[in-house]
């Protein structure tokens, strides 16, 4: 039994067909209908037409080019601010805050426009970011933001929104309306993390404040209260944990504070080759989450069994396990319990459940294994989520009773996210004055009378206290784009007694006064703004663990009904989350880490369920975007969803992502994409459940197209592209990669008759100064996609829309390939998942370079494989010859950069999605990086190693008359990575971090497809799973049969390709096992 790496079912089940279908780089018939065997003249578009077009276009081009050069103006400032230099970026520390998520960031501002988000390295996150925080800069320029205060006039069908011209009128109108309404005043918000805002809310007389989270953590808050710690959530230190057990918590993707957790988790995953050891991660879950994909040991269960698993684990830890679970699951629980106990407190159990009882049990486990004080820190409770589900229900009851006169809503969207949205809408209608401060015309805001949009975070002053004592500040990076006002100012104005000075009724000055007083001086205030974060010493927690609630929880859990039949679990995607940023095109186009699907949500189902539903997992299923659809019914709620089948799913679980199915007003990006699954959540009496039992599933025998990116780029069975093993095998055979490499080198020289130059048709490139290189540690890459979005932002990578992704036209310069590792006999027996960021490898022997007829891609003296857009004529030979499939072709005018205007609607390539129009709006284009060319139709593009940043770093060094320091030049993907998996630098610098990481990891370091001898400048460190299993694909010394199998299996055409590239000399010997054995 050997393990097999595979990306798609077609590869596993129908290899022959798969191979023939993946031969073409661009899998589409050319759109020339008329050209058939009859020849050119008889074709539908005959020679004369061709000549006509040719003549016309030549004439048009000449005309367009020879017209008088337009007069361009250079308009300087009227008064240049002293510290602004046009053309030089400035960086301002601020804080990304969204639905309680807090990430200290630094905004890069070029000529007054924020264009890129970086992590704040001074903060506790160490400079990491998420896909969503990276994409937030695009939200600033969202053309669908609410642009000015609105007031609803008329009722029923005549209701319409009218602009309120000034904020004085707003205050006046709201004041009068509130006075007339009487009743109580309620402020409904998401979790408020800002201390100054909390103070303003507290000072507002008779204001009832309700916090409501779209995806709630109130089970955890209540459980911690019951366990004696107060209604808080502690800080978790994943770095200190040697054993991590996650009960369905997606802590690397969406749970609480993934940036921080990924950083800590990566600490335990890095390997010292001299003494290999790493943390052990058990995951118990129902579906295949991103975190589960990274686990060492993974066990699946029904969603309804989550509580039982937690209880069983507690019993196992306490040694009182009564069993009763499925045998495999039971074994896993025993193994996890044993590991937890052995870890001596350096262990951690987390649970993603929103059930109070489950969290009480988890607390009991953490107490039993001694995690408190070691991996769980109560001295710095976190504020990310504070909503209590029952409070929202109470609010609805009050609304229904008519007691609420005025309701103000900020950062919450219950009309979309509440489990019973209709009930909320009906209740909301009873409030007399309904005010929304939300930034967009979302589902709840639509129902309000007054819409007074608040600033985007990049426009506002503000603060956040992610953890007790740690403050992260916000400062404006751009003048407000629209007529918006911080909602805190509204609260201050409306609550101020008449005649109060303006300074105290304006949040900007309130904020300054507040923090100057708190921090002691104006200097301290400025320092805090400059750093972005302040940290005061942690205060020891007042609470201590109490097991009083365990008995009650145990009884409750024992009483849970055992589920049968299909069950539904609702999860969040790293890209879309709860849906509040669903209108962001970068996020919609970011492939999900596990499914690699863009622009949709879908039902994730198991292989056995697929068989049950009669879905055939042959090559057609995988090859074509057409996916079967099912009707999913839970009680009265039913929904039609497309299906994607995954290994490693619980057989009876159907997992669907939240955050989709938004309304029209959110914008063309999110409207109509996917299905809203919030109605499938339910209230269990204390908290909201994100799973549903008793589901019914019917195959509708219809199909729906899902735009997945994973299959777009095939290595055609060359498995050496990904290297993965277990810790056990790695310890036993540490030199597998080294030996493979040595044998290739030997064979190479042997075949080259010891004359290096005769062995290759590639010129030898000198790198007299710098040689840029990159190393990616696959043990620290968890697939989150922050790098992909960062690359979008830094390099003006276009969004193409679902229609184009369906046609394999996605433009990502950097993609994260996902490989399932499973038993060869049973693909459902998932051993692990490998995430491999794949970008241009900047080969020294680059196969793309020598096929370009116009030398548009060539080699630089710094080791870069350069792409020159204005030289490219679009033959795509380079993309065909690239073994890694990282080159992207601009099939259409995605960016509006063509010389001819309105070139986006072309009959020949088909009409593009409306999101392209959004991305090309004047406002949205403000996000473009002015240092990077916006590519036009018909040229190839690809990763440039962020050459604009390299050039800038070199220039800075030259201007300062100094040597380039390590770390001066960083790529966008590198700075975005929360776990520092990517190291970039000068390979010629003996002291650079890159050289260090490469020299310290000779046994794990590999170049993808080394046998092709393309000499990439990107190296990877092999993925190691902490498992005691023998990895059968990790052969003992001397054997490279693996490569040989791959080679022989692939037969004809790609061998040609490889050998053509290699001058026919190296490959055969390198991959002939008979000779080497």
């Amino acid at each position: 039994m050997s393990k097999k790496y595979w990306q798609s079912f077609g590869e596993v089940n129908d290899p022959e067909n798969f191979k023939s279908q993946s031969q073409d780089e661009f899998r589409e018939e050319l759109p020339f209908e008329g050209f058939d065997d009859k020849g050119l003249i008889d074709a539908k578009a005959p020679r004369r037409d061709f000549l006509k077009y040719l003549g016309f276009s030549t004439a048009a081009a000449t005309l367009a080019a020879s017209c008088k050069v337009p007069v361009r103006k250079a308009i300087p400032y009227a008064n240049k601010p002293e510290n602004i230099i046009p053309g030089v970026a400035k960086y301002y520390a601020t804080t990304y805050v969204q639905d309680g998520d807090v990430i200290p960031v630094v905004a890069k501002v070029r000529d007054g426009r924020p264009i890129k988000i970086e992590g704040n390295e001074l903060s506790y996150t160490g400079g990491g970011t998420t896909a969503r925080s990276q994409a937030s800069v695009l939200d600033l320029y969202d053309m669908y933001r609410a642009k000015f205060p609105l007031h609803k006039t008329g009722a029923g069908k005549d209701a319409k929104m009218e602009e309120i011209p000034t904020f004085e009128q707003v205050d006046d109108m709201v004041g009068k309306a509130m006075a007339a309404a009487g009743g109580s005043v309620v402020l409904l918000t998401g979790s408020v993390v800002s201390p100054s805002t909390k103070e303003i809310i507290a000072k507002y007389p008779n204001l009832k404040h309700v916090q409501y989270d779209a995806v709630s953590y109130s089970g955890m808050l209540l459980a911690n209260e019951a366990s004696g710690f107060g209604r808080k959530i502690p800080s978790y230190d994943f770095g200190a944990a040697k054993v991590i057990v996650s009960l369905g918590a997606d802590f690397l993707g969406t749970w609480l504070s993934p940036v921080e957790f990924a950083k800590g988790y990566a600490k335990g995953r890095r390997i010292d080759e001299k003494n290999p050891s790493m943390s052990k991660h058990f995951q118990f879950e129902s579906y295949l989450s991103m975190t589960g994909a990274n686990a060492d040991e993974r066990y699946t269960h029904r969603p309804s069994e989550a509580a039982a698993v937690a209880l069983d684990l507690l019993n196992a830890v306490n040694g009182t396990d009564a069993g009763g679970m499925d045998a495999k699951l039971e074994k896993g629980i025993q193994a996890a319990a044993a590991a937890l106990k052995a870890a001596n407190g350096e262990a951690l159990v987390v649970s993603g459940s929103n059930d109070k009882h489950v969290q009480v049990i988890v607390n009991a486990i953490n107490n039993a294994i001694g995690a408190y004080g070691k991996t769980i820190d109560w001295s710095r409770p976190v504020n990310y989520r504070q909503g209590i589900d029952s409070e929202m229900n109470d609010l609805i009851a009050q609304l229904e009773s008519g007691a609420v006169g005025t309701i103000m809503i900020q950062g919450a969207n219950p009309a979309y996210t509440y489990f019973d949205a209709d009930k909320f809408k009906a209740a909301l209608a009873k409030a007399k004055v309904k005010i929304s401060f939300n930034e967009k015309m979302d589902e709840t805001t639509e129902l309000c009378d007054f819409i007074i949009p608040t600033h985007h975070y990049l426009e506002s002053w503000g603060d956040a206290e992610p953890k007790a004592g740690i403050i992260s500040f916000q400062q404006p990076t751009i003048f407000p784009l629209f007529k918006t006002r911080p909602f805190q100012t509204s609260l201050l104005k409306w609550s101020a007694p008449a005649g109060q000075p303006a300074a105290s009724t304006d949040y900007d000055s309130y904020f300054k006064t507040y923090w100057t007083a708190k921090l002691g001086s104006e200097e301290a205030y400025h320092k805090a703004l400059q750093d972005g974060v302040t940290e005061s010493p942690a205060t020891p927690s007042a609470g201590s663990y109490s097991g009083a609630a365990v008995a009650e929880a145990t009884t409750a859990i024992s009483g849970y009904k055992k589920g049968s039949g299909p069950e539904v679990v609702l999860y969040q995607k790293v890209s879309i989350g709860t849906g509040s940023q669903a209108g962001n095109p970068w996020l919609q186009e970011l492939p999900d880490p596990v499914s690699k699907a863009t622009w949709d949500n879908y039902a994730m189902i198991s292989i056995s369920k697929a068989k049950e539903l009669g879905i055939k997992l042959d090559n057609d299923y995988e090859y074509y975007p057409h996916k079967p659809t099912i009707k999913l019914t839970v009680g009265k709620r039913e929904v039609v969803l497309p299906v994607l089948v995954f290994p490693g799913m619980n057989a009876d679980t159907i997992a669907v992502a939240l955050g989709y199915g938004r309304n029209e007003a959110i914008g063309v990006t999110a409207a109509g994409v996917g299905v809203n699954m919030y109605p499938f959540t339910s209230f269990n009496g204390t908290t909201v459940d994100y799973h549903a039992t008793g589901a019914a599933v019917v195959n509708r025998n219809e199909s729906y197209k899902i735009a997945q990116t994973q299959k777009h780029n095939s290595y055609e069975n060359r498995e050496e592209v990904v290297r993965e093993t277990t810790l056990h095998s790695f310890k036993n055979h540490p030199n597998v990669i080294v030996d493979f490499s040595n044998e290739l080198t030997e064979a190479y020289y042997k075949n080259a008759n010891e004359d290096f130059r005769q062995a290759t048709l590639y010129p030898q490139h000198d790198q007299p100064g710098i040689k840029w290189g990159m190393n990616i540690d696959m043990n620290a890459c968890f697939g989150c996609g922050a790098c992909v979005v960062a690359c979008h932002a830094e390099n003006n990578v276009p969004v193409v829309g679902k229609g184009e992704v369906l046609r394999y036209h996605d433009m990502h310069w950097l993609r994260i390939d996902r490989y399932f590792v499973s038993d060869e006999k049973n693909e459902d027996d998932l051993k692990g998942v490998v995430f491999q960021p794949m970008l241009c490898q900047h080969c020294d022997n680059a196969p793309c370079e020598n096929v370009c007829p116009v030398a548009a891609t060539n080699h630089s003296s710094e080791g870069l494989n350069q792409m020159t857009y204005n030289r490219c004529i679009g033959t795509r030979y380079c993309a065909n010859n690239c073994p890694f499939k990282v080159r992207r072709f601009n099939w259409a005018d995605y960016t509006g950069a063509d010389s001819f205007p309105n070139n986006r609607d072309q009959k020949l390539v088909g009409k593009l999605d409306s999101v392209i129009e959004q991305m090309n709006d004047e406002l949205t284009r403000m996000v473009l990086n002015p240092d990077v060319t916006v590519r036009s139709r018909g040229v190839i593009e690809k990763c440039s190693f962020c050459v604009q940043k390299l050039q800038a770093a070199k220039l800075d060094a030259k201007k300062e008359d100094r040597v380039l320091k390590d770390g001066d030049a960083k790529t966008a993907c590198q700075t975005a990575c929360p776990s520092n998996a990517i190291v970039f630098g000068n390979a010629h610098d003996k002291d650079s971090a890159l050289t260090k990481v490469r020299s310290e990891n000779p046994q794990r370091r590999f170049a993808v497809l080394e046998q092709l001898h393309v000499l990439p400048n990107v190296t990877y460190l092999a993925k190691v799973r902490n498992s005691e299993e023998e990895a059968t694909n990790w052969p003992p010394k001397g054997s490279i049969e693996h490569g040989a199998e791959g080679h022989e299996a692939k037969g004809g055409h790609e061998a040609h390709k490889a050998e053509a590239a290699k001058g026919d000399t190296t490959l055969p010997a390198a991959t002939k096992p008979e000779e080497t054995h």
Partner: protein
Amino acid sequence: MISCKTTGQRLTLIFLSLFTFCSIHISAQDVAAGKTLFVGKCASCHNIFKATTGPALMNLEERHKWADHKELLKWINNPAGYMANDPYTQGLKAQYGGQMMTAFSDITLKNVDDIVAYINDQVASQGKSKDPGTVNNEPKGNSNAVIFGVISLILGIIALILMQVNSNLKKMSDDAEGISRPEPVAFYKNKIYIAMAAILFFVVGGYLVAKGAIGLGRQTNYQPEQPIYYSHKVHAGINQINCQYCHSSVMESKHATIPSVNVCMNCHKAIKTYEKGPKLYTESGEEVNGTAEIAKLYKYAGFDPNNATVWDPTKAKPIEWIKIHNLPDHVYFNHSQHVKAGKVQCQSCHGEITAMDEVKQVSELSMGWCVNCHRQTKVDFNYDSTGNKFYSIYEKFHNDLKTSELNAVKADKTLTSKDRKFKIDSIMRTVRMDSVRVQDIGGLECQKCHY
């Protein structure tokens, strides 16, 4: 902020100029360092020879207490504090429009010495020939081409005539000998001539078309009419205002930047009329009223010259200058790269700007033009440790190459002589230690300018 900076700077220079007196210790100071400082910090408000925003700095050591550089330093570091009990500087402030000199707290005593040394040096060499800084890029050989063209033409015509003569003579001799031949065809009906003319037409026409097509979008000699007749000759030439005073980000940014209105007003608050300079003419020869042009500036600035004290700089409107030097969008050009790191003079690309009234584009700004310069320009290499330290990484690499690799290749007996020559050549290509040019460190690579 505007007023404060510039006046301050003016005043500094006034006082600096008092020092000329003690010109004995010039040798001890670094004139070159002084020049850098002067240009970077002082020149925006002070001229050495004449009062501008601030006083002229020549002979400053003769004035006030400035012979003592420590006093001068105190003043430069903190003009406001110094002025508090110093009537002389108070008087200067009044004299120069009530503007205070900017404080330069980072200036040290050594800096003051250097700056004064530079000023004295300039005073001493006054009247001598000016900096030859600019390069004469006029293409030569133009006249030769004309001569050659004319000669070719004449020779061509002579050849044609001779051929006609030849054929006529041949006919005559044939007639004389009685051989009957067909009547010769007139030369304009001769197919050979027609064919040759056609070929010539296509060659010349093709050449012209190609040349014209290449030149599309290029605008050498572009000299648009600007909203204000601004004469670089008057400002940068006659008044010797340093380029960087107005184009202040040229050392830091990709843009040299056009000055904002407040920068213009730094000087023009005081200089309200154009009187002493030479007469100004537009391209078409009309005379320009300099004072009226200054009045246009006042209109943009919202400044009333008769009531200067009430001016509110925040009410100013930007001037919409017409951009002369345009590059295509796919070209990345960075001024600081060239001016600061590469130490290229402004005039190398922009021409004799100090002699132009309204600016015109002198260089072609074509890729060939860029590349030529990158081929020829030497890099500020660090061979003798005076060059830019950035390049030391290359130097080390070169040395390694030179010593170890070259020796290794030479000593390698297994190589054939052809291979050895090839290797030595390839090493030597990168090891031309005498002159490393921009092209040798990748200056001709696509992604140096296109990304």
